[in-house]
Every structure is written in C-alpha cells, then in structure tokens.
C-alpha cells in the first residue's frame, strides 16, 4: 500500500516555472558596501541606513542557530545576491498599464490576476517580485478610510515617523541570527496602517515570488492596528524550481493596540525541492505580534512548500485580556523538513491563547512541532489550550512534538493535548471501496484532519488552501 501512496503523492510543483524578465541583480556577497547600495537603491533616509548597518554589525557577531530538528549543508552567505529587481522597475510604474507584461503573465500563471476588475472581490493585493514590490492594488479605495497599504520601502520615505516608531519594536534587530540578517538587508515587503476605530474594508494580501537565481529574499512586513481597529491580511509565496537552495529570511511585526484585532494568514508554497531533496527554498522566518489591552492576534498558516521551514509565529500578550491564536497546517513530503510552531507569551492578566497545530508528514520528510507557552508572574487567570496532532502517511516519515511550558503564575492554566495517527489502510480501503481513487481518498482524509484550521482562514482562501493541499498530494496537476 505504501508504494501506492508514494505514487499518489508524488507531484509536480505547479509554480515551478522561471520567468524571463530582465533584471538588475547585485553580484553575490555581503558587506557594508552592499547594504549601502541597497539603501541607496531604495532612496532611504540616513537613519534607515544607520539602522541597517547596526543590524549588520550585530549579525556578524552572531551564530546561526542549530537547536532546530533540521539537517542541511551550511549556508555560505557570500554566495547569495542580496538585491534583484526587474529592470523595468527603475521608475516604479504608476499604474498596472506600466507594469512589464511578462510580470503580469507570471502572476496570471500563478492564478493571481493583477487587473483590479478581475480580482477576487474585496481583496487588495501587494505583489513582491524578488526584491521589490511591483504593484499594490486598491490603494485609493483603502485611502478613503485612511488605511495605508503600500510597499515598506515607500513607507520608509513617506511615513518615516510611523516606521521609526514601530520598526524593530516587536522583533528587535538582534532578536536572532536571521532577524538580524533581515534587518540589515531587507529589500521590500508590505506596510499596513489601520487608523483608530477603522475596520479595514477589504482583505489585504501580499504575494511573494522569488524568480532570480542565487538570490535571497528578505522581506519585511509591518502591520500597525490602532486602537479599536480591525484587519485581515494574507500572504502567499511561490518560487521557480531550481537545483540550488535559495534563502528566504523574512521578518513580520504586528502591533495590535488596545481593543484591536489582527488576523494574519499565510499560504506558503515556496519550491520544496525535488524528491531527492535537491533544491528548494530555505525558509527562516521570524513572525511576532504584540497585543495590547483587549487586543487579539490570530496567526493561521498553511505550510506546504520549502525544503526547510523554520518558523514560529508568536504572540506577546502584553495587555490584560488580550488573546493570541495560532492555527497551523504543515505538510511535508519527499525530503522536506519543517520545524515550526509558536510562542505564546502571557504577560497580562486574563490573557488567553489557543494553539491548534496539524502536522502531516509523507515520504521521507520530517515534521516537527515546537511550541512555547510562557505564563509570566503577572498573568493572573491566564489560560492556554494547545492541541497538537500529527498525521503520518506511509512509514518512512517522521513527526516530532516539542511542547515547552514555563509558568511563573500558579493561577494560570495550561492545557495540552497531542495525538499521532496514520492514514490507515482500512480508511483508504473504505474510501476506494466507495468508488474514490486513491488520490481523492488521501486528500479527503488529510482535509478532514485539517478541518479545524481551514475554518479559520478567510473564506476566499479556505478553498485555495484546500486545493493547494490536494495539489500537494496529487500525482498530477491539470
């Protein structure tokens, strides 16, 4: 049976094409000069350059973390190019009409139409191609309610006070090796600002695409929700099939002020490498949010891509009654390795957090959940509930669970449940006996397993996520 399963889940990576776009790309290598040139390309103010240089100097003294359950060849940071932009972007297009048609075709191939009239109703999109944001849609409409949604490089020039006030406050420059690297060399990403009391009138979304060879992608996202505001944001990611590993080290910072709510969803489908583990994206990401009084931060992630995933979207529940949520589906197959989970840091009183993690492993992959729940001394009446389920497909994969609990408050309650199950031959036989082919059977069982997480995704994307999972599991793609 397991051979049959292997066949059923061996698939082509659908987003694996390379776009033929002329680009300006830096020579590989990293030193202060490269950082100065990035800053110059972005026409940044001096304070930003200084901020980057300080991050770089710290990074040089830091060591790459090795505590995760991941095995890979050491990364040579001097062989990576730290900046690549499509040539036609020199003078940023003012409208879609000026965007390189090849770029538009790239996104159409990915199923992301950029023409506003063709877009999903009510979703504004920012598109980041290699190191630059190429287009952001619906900006005027958002501006009517005072919402700012733009590339972060633009925000640094246009809204320096906001950026200065919050950048690096949630994920400090020296937080960890990859965050420090990102702080030094980040090229683009999205900036979102929701004014006080405003409910963002549409879903915001960013699509990231790595195209250029030997190029790292270092995007930085900053979302600020003022008091009583509300926003739902989604990011999607893809990359071409390449034999070399490519580095992606992003930082996302969420600031949820009193009574606000930020919902952040990710559908991550970076190139995972081939069945022998050649190529694929190394995905080292730091995502964190701070929730003030009565605020809520909700992370939902569907992770199906990348050769290596190192990612722990976290919540610092600083304000009393603040709420943190983490809903995750991580699927690994072939030689993929994922070490992912969350940190819930309860500082305020009556803070609550929920963690639902669903790990699915197939092939020779390794899938690790790593989570920390920390109850601070002032977190009176705080509560956490964690459910951590692993599903194994076949018998050559591995699943691990590392839940860490630290409680400094006797009134805080931490609940943890964990299960491991397999897609059993009996289940597959039942499905097939009822006329379903094996691919359909597996995807149905896996979808059932993930149901609790999918229902947390914004409506438009729940379907997308289900399909992505199905494609990730299916033998062929139509």
């Amino acid at each position, binding site marked *: *049976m397991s051979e*049959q399963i292997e066949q059923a889940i061996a698939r082509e990576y659908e987003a694996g094409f390379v776009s033929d776009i002329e680009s300006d790309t830096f020579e590989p290598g990293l030193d202060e000069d490269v950082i100065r040139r990035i800053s110059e390309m972005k026409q940044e103010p001096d304070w930003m350059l200084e901020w980057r240089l300080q991050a770089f100097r710290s990074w040089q003294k830091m060591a790459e973390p090795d505590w995760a359950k991941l095995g890979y060849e050491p990364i040579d940071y001097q062989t990576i190019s730290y900046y690549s932009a499509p040539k036609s972007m020199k003078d940023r297009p003012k409208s879609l009409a000026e965007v390189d048609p090849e770029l538009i075709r790239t996104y159409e191939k990915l199923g992301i139409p950029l023409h506003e009239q063709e877009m999903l109703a009510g979703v504004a999109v920012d598109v980041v191609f290699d190191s630059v944001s190429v287009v952001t849609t619906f900006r005027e409409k958002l501006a009517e309610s005072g919402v700012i949604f733009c590339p972060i490089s633009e925000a640094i020039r246009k809204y320096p006070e906001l950026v200065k006030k919050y950048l690096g406050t949630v994920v400090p420059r020296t937080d960890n090796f990859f965050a420090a690297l990102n702080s030094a060399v980040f090229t683009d990403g999205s900036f979102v600002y929701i004014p006080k009391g405003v409910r963002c009138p549409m879903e915001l979304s960013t699509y990231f695409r790595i195209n250029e060879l030997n190029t790292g992608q270092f995007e930085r996202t900053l979302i600020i929700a003022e008091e009583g505001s509300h926003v739902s944001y989604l990011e999607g990611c893809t990359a071409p099939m390449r034999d070399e590993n490519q580095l992606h080290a992003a930082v996302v910072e969420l600031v949820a002020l009193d009574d606000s709510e930020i919902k952040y969803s990710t559908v991550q489908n970076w190139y995972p490498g081939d069945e022998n583990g050649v190529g694929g994206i190394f995905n080292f990401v730091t995502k964190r949010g701070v929730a003030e009084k009565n605020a809520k931060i909700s992370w939902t992630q569907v992770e199906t891509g990348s050769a290596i995933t190192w990612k722990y979207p976290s919540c610092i529940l600083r304000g009393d009654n603040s709420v943190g949520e983490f809903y995750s589906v991580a699927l690994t197959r072939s030689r993929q390795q994922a070490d992912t989970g969350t940190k819930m840091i309860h500082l305020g009183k009556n803070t609550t957090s929920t963690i639902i993690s669903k790990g699915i492993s197939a092939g020779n992959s390794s899938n690790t959940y790593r989570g920390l729940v920390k109850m601070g001394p002032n977190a009176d009446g705080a509560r956490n509930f964690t459910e951590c389920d692993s599903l194994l497909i076949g018998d050559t994969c591995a699943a691990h669970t590392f839940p860490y609990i630290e409680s400094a408050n006797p009134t805080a309650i931490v609940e943890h449940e964990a299960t491991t*199950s397999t897609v*059993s*031959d*009996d*289940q597959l*036989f*039942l*499905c*097939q*006996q*009822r*006329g*379903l*082919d*094996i691919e*359909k059977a597996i995807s*149905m*069982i896996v*979808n*059932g*397993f*993930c*149901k*609790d997480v999918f229902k947390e995704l914004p409506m438009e994307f729940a379907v997308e996520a289900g399909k992505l999972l199905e494609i990730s599991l299916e033998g062929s793609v139509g």
Partner: protein
Amino acid sequence: MLSIKNLHASIEGKEILKGLNLNVKPGEVHAIMGPNGAGKSTLGYVLSGREEYEATSGKVEFEQRDLLELEVDERARAGLFLAFQYPVEIPGVSNMEFLKESVSAARKERGQEQLTAAEFLKAARAACEQVNLPVEFLRRGVNEGFSGGEKKRNEIMQMIMLEPTLCILDESDSGLDIDALKVVADGVNSQRDGKRSFIVITHYQRLLDFIQPDFVHILADGKIAKSGGPELAKEVEASGYAWLENHEEANA
C-alpha cells in the same frame, strides 16, 4: 452477473480460500454461513480487491468483466458494494462530504447527470430516514463515535445512496438489537428490485427470517461445503457445524 470459479486466495502466503465456486444471477439473494475463520470475510475482501488478499488462481467474472483485473475503486464504480463487518472511522470527513464524493463517482461512471445540491440532500435525508438514523449523522465524521449498530446502519445508508448492482453484506446483523435488525433488513429488502443481487454473510438464521434468501451456502475451510435453500439455515441454527466434519469424512 457474478461467477466465481475455483477461486484460491491467500493472505501473507497462507491459503484461506481453497477452490471456491459460486454463481449469482441478477436479483438473487445468496446467504453465506459458516464457522468463525472459515473465510467468509476473506471472500468479501477478495471480491472487492483488498490488496493484502491475493487471488492465486481461479476466475471471477462480474457483469462480463474479469473482476480480478480491476482496482478496488474500479470494482466499486462497476457496481460492487461491500458493507463492512467492522466499519472504520474517518475523523473530520463528514458523512455528507463522503457520500457526495462517492455518489458523484458512481454517477459519473454510469454516465448519469450529477445531482444538484438540493437533490442530493433530499436523497441523503430519505436514506437516513430509511435506516432510522437522525439526519444529524450526515454532518458527523464518517463513523466517528458511532455506536456499533449505528455504524452498521450507516453502511446500509451508503448502499442505498450508491445503488450498486451487487451488495455484499458482511455480518450487517451482528451486534444489532431486534429493531435495528428489522431496519437493516427493510433497507435491504427495499433495494431488491429483481436486478440487484445480494451476498449476505451471517451467523444467524434470524436475519434470514427478514431477508428471504434464494440460496444458502455453508462456507467451511475455504470452500462451499454445502448449498441449499432457506431450510439449510434452520438446520445450522439447530445443530451447528459439527456435522461438517462427518460430511468431509464421508466425502473422503
């Protein structure tokens, strides 16, 4: 519609079916009885194509097709249905979703138009009612947390929805109270239309009071040891299987 000739089958190299012959014509109901471990469930699995059960020799023809050449799902879509002795749970997949996919696969195979959502719901509700399962069961996970009897009724519900041509019921009466037994039997009887055929595996003659079989076979040691009419089931009920040994000795 089904013809089994000299079927041998083994599991992990151990021979279980040892030259089994059986002919089922359209509309017939065949009951199969026999001692524990005789190979009754094995027969159901071999016919439906379960991987571990290997047909080593013999021939099985189903509606003019070589059944043993087909994959499990192809056999199912060709109209073969197996009601399981021990139905398995599929957590998180609702009965509704599961039925929708399987009914859609069956209809596609038969070249029928797909049901609209409303038509499907109506049919599913009616099927639930027929086997006396509350409609809420459509929303629950497949067999998830169902009682033994509910699982058996759920199998019959699926059978009604799928409209197969050959139904193999593996002890669909075991563990049922008398009311549930009648429900299951009624469900089966309602599907008897003169064309659909049934192989009913059971240990108890009482099921056959409700489902009148055309033939009763005793399966022992991997073969049909004796065939007859409904009276054979009564004989078994009265005197068990001890006579089988004598019978075999007499044959020897």
